[in-house]
Every structure is written in C-alpha cells, then in structure tokens.
C-alpha cells in the first residue's frame, strides 16, 4: 500500500440547504430545490423557476460568518471552504486554493451597477476572487481559479490531485461556486436552453435545464495507508470533443474517451463502477450524448446506477463538479444511491440504469463523476472508499 490523493474534508450549500446532512437527507427523499424564482425580473427569461439558495440558508451563513455585508457568492464560498477545512487540523499556511467557477461574483458587479454607484467590485474576475477567498481563509499557498465552463469543478479537483501527486502543493482546498444572476438567466434564455419546468434529466419529456446556485468545497490531501479519508481519488481524465463550441459531440466520443482513460489510470475495469454521477443537464443533446458514451463503455455488462442531481439542485455551472462530488460522498458512506429526480420514462437512445427510488450502492465499488461543458470539454473522476491502492 502506498499513498494516494484523498478527500479529507467537505462543505456544501445548495438550494437543498446548508451542510452535507441537510443536502443528503433531501437527496435521498427526492426533494427538489427548484422553485419559482424571486428577486429577478422573471418575465425577462424563458422560465420562472430556478434552484436558489434560500434566504434562511443565507441568514444562517451570514450569522456563522458574523458578517452580513458579504456578497452572496463570496459568503457561500468562504462558508463551504471553512466547513471543509474544519474536518482536518492542518496549518493553513500549507494549503493552496483552487476556485472553480464560471462567472465568479458577477452578481456583485450587477448589484453594484443596479445601485447606480461607481463599480468597485472586483470579484467578478475569478482570479481575484480566488486570491480573496484564500486570504479570507488565511491560506498561505497558491491561489488561482480554474474556469472551464460546466466542467470547471472536476477539472479543478483533477488539477489539485495532480499538484499533490507531484508535490507542488501540500494540501489543496478546491472551492466551487456560482450564483444566479440576471446575466446567466438572460444568457441561458437566449440559448433557449432553459426548461419552463424543473429539469427532468434523461426523461422522455425533458426540455431543458434549470439553473441553480451554491458552493461546494473539498479538502484534498495525500493519504497514506491506514489513514482515514472520505474518499480516495482513483483515476481521472479530461478531453475535448474538438467539434463544436456549444454543442456536445452527438455520439459522445470525447466523453467516452475520458471515461476509458480514467478507468485505465485507476487500473480498473468498468465492473468496478457502482454509480455514475452524470452531468445530466436535462437538455436533449447532453443527455443523449451521455447515454451513448456510457453505453459504449458499460454496454456489455450490468450497467451501474446513473443519476443526475440537476433535478434536485439545478445546474450550478462552474461549481457543479465540486458540489456534486461532495453530494456523492455519502453514497460511499451510507451505501445508498439517491433517486434521479425528474426521471420517469427513459428518454435517451441508449438504455441507462436510472433509479426512481433510493437503491443500494454495491459495497466496495467506485463512483464515476462526469461533466461536460461549452468549448467541447469533458472531465471524469473516479473515486471510492478505502485505502490508497
């Protein structure tokens, strides 16, 4: 037994609540945080639903941080980061930070504009926000952002794992955050990508995604044999379709390649995967593409369970990879795969094993996370419980 990269701390806030316990309970009970949108001019968009973090959750965060003047994105990022850090006693001077985000704190910028004052906001720049989050958490290592569209989160975790493996960092805090804003609501409206109803990933009647917001954080460390961790990272990969800027490759070749390469890195065969945490946006093309990729790798065997969490928490964009990795950790600890909310009737070309109710997670198996995004990017991460291999 050698050492490996493990997740040793986690923090999360989503539309389902604050903390992993609240979020997990809601997932297992098939709750959805997608509700009627408030605080935005909903008639400007092609939907009036989204998965917003509740005011109750925000008040709790502000109370714990002791500062209600902080912006929504910044406070969520700091709070989630603090929760992950609290699980291990590590000298913060030895911790580097990677911020995973699509639009960072653009909402703060919008709010400043709407107030008619001179804009002093700077955290709409992901690099600036990364440095400020690190400073707020007194972290002494490097701080930078990874901004790779909806695959940002997994690519940030992969980046952290690589840095730990080669000794470029001692510990890594990966924080993913994105919040609802007029900007993203308008943008996805003009792409005609939003469903007027809560998203229904993989379902026959799916007609688009629901936007969400939140923050997730994972603390990564080198873990030696016999040391405890929430999960060990076994393999990963990233690829590019090199086909289209906004649409995925129809047959999922790029994602298939990313899955196969992650399995090869882990030294695993497909039978070792017990659950796939899909991207599952609820758009026609994405879910079809994922079904092709999964079928091509797992087609000749009893397929692992596959779910999307987008029906619960919406699409949290650049934070999705981190948030959904955090939400998958209890699968390993509780041995339960929560249902895929919004799914009723199979609506993708290749048959998938999508549970409508909670189902047992086969002990000893691993989780495959996969995310894809604009620019043709795909990212995959295999993680499981146990010791370093």
């Amino acid at each position, binding site marked *: 037994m050698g050492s490996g990269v493990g997740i040793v701390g986690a923090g999360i806030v989503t539309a389902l609540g604050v903390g992993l316990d609240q979020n997990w309970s809601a997932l297992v009970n098939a709750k959805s945080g997608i509700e009627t949108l408030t605080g935005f001019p909903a008639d400007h968009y092609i939907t009036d639903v989204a998965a917003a973090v509740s005011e109750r959750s925000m008040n709790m965060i502000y109370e714990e941080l002791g500062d209600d003047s902080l912006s929504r994105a910044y406070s969520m990022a700091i709070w989630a980061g603090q929760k992950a850090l609290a699980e291990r006693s590590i000298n913060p001077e030895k911790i580097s930070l990677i911020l995973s985000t699509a639009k960072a704190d653009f909402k703060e910028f919008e709010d400043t504009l709407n107030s008619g004052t001179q*804009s002093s906001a700077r955290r709409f720049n992901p690099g600036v926000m990364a440095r400020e989050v690190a400073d707020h958490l007194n972290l002494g290592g490097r701080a930078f952002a990874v901004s790779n569209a909806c695959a940002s989160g997994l690519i940030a975790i992969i980046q952290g794992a690589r840095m730990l493996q080669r000794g470029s960092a001692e510990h890594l805090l990966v924080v993913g955050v994105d919040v609802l804003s007029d900007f993203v609501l308008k943008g996805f409206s003009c*792409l005609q990508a939003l469903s007027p109803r809560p998203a229904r990933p993989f379902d026959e009647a799916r007609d688009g995604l629901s936007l969400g917001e939140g923050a997730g954080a994972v603390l990564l460390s080198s873990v030696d044999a016999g040391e405890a961790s929430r999960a060990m990272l076994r393999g990963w990969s990233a690829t590019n379709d090199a086909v289209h800027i906004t649409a995925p490759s129809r047959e999922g070749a790029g994602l298939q390649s990313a899955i196969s390469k992650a399995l090869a890195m882990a030294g695993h065969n497909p039978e070792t995967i017990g659950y796939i945490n899909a991207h599952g946006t609820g758009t026609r093309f994405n879910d079809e593409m994922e079904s092709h990729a999964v079928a091509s790798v797992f087609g000749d065997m009893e397929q692992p369970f596959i779910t999307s969490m987008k029906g619960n928490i919406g699409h949290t964009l650049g934070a999705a990879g981190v948030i959904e990795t955090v939400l998958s950790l209890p699968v390993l600890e509780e041995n339960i795969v929560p249902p895929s909310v919004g799914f009723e009737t199979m609506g993708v070309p290749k048959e998938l094993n999508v549970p409508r109710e909670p189902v047992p997670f086969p002990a000893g198996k691993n989780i495959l996370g996969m995310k894809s995004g604009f620019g043709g*990017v795909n990212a995959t991460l295999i993680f499981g419980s146990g010791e370093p291999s």
Partner: protein
Amino acid sequence: MSGVGIYGYGRYDASGISGTRRTSDIELMGIDDLKWKHVSDVTYKRFGQLDALSKAAMAATEMIGISELMGADIASETGITLGTKDGCLGTDIDFRANAIERDVSNPRLFAYTLPSTVCGDLAIRHGFQGANACYMSENDNGVLALAEGFYLVESGELQGCLCLEVDALFEESASAANEFKMNLDTDRFSAYAFLLMNTDVAAGSPLGEFAFTPGEDCKMGSLRELCGLIESRGKDVPITKIGYDDLAVSIRGMER
C-alpha cells in the same frame, strides 16, 4: 516520464506578430483590425465570429505552424492550457450591455462569456482532443499554463500541449465598460503561445528544454519574456533559465 521540449512559439502583442512559422510583414494592428489573412494563408471562416480573446489566441497560435510540427495522430493526444488575467471580461461587458441593457440577445456572444471557449476554438481548429485547463489568477497565469503543460506531457497524459497566455479587450468593450462606470484600458491585447511536445515523438530539435533545478532561483516573469529569449536565439544568448518552482526552461543560443 517523457522528455519535453518547446517546438514552436507564436506571439501577437504590441511589438508585432511573429513566431516559428514566420514573422509577419504586416504593420502592427489592433485586435479590431486583425483579419485571418494577416496570420494564415488557409481559409478559416470562423475567425470573424470569434471574440477578442479567441482572436488573439488564434493569431498567436497560427504563427507556430502546428501542421508542420505534428500530424493528426499526435494532435488527437494534444491538449491546451490557457492562462489569462482578465479572461472574457470584455465579452462579459458586451453581452451585458447588449442582452440586458438593450435587450438584444446574442447566443454566440454568450458562449464567449466563458474564457475556456478559447480552448474550444483552438481544439476545433487544430484537432486537439486532449485535456484542457483555463487558469485565472492575478499573476503568473502564463507561467502556470506552461508549467502545467509540461507536467501533462512529461507524465505521458498528453503527447503535446499548446500553452498560452492571453489577454485582450476590444475598443468597444472599453466603451461599454464606461457605461458601467468601469475603467478599462482600451484596445489592450497580448497573446503568447508555445507548443510543447514529447521529445520521443517530435521531429527535429526543440527550441527550449525543460529541466528540474532544485535549489536554484528560477522565478519566471512571463511568457512574453520567454518569447523574447527565443527570438534572441542565434545572437549568442547564453543558456537562460526561466522557471516555476524548481522547473526551469533553458533556451539555448543556437540555430534550430
């Protein structure tokens, strides 16, 4: 572990357009005036649809002459690392000004409100199907992109990696920013691109070589500095080390 070398470079900045393939004889121009014909003889109709960041990145990359350095088999195992300070800020402002303030929706513009769209454009143009990463920080963006590109090739995850440092703003973005009471430098652009390859698969000699130099101070300023060193080759430039942590790049004063 594989040997890693720099096999090509390209630049587009205030000092001109140049690179491994050729030094353009066109007069220096701002990004608003840059046309595809200024950097390539090959037809590429998408160029006019790109935002400033992608145009700058594409122009610098085109000066490398990638098709002469690798075939499709290596391209499919080549990735992209991009470092940028301001990312797509100019396009963000354009989109907000048009879509929100003026209620003019533009899906294409929205796609460019993600800095990593640059990687998508470059991947499509060159058939690069390997890993992508877009890094944003206040400092050392390009150095980070170069170092990460090195590690990806050295580990065998990739056979090649295009590493870039790019920042660009259109004049019109700055005008839009003024509407929002933001001050942005006008018509600011710079793009530096380096092609890293596994020395076992690359043809010819590299322009620069990577080495670990524990204990030496190898702080590197920027990829602009690295471009300058490469362009000084053949002028009796001594071995110059330029680095990130213990990782350094040596540019030798020799003809290729």
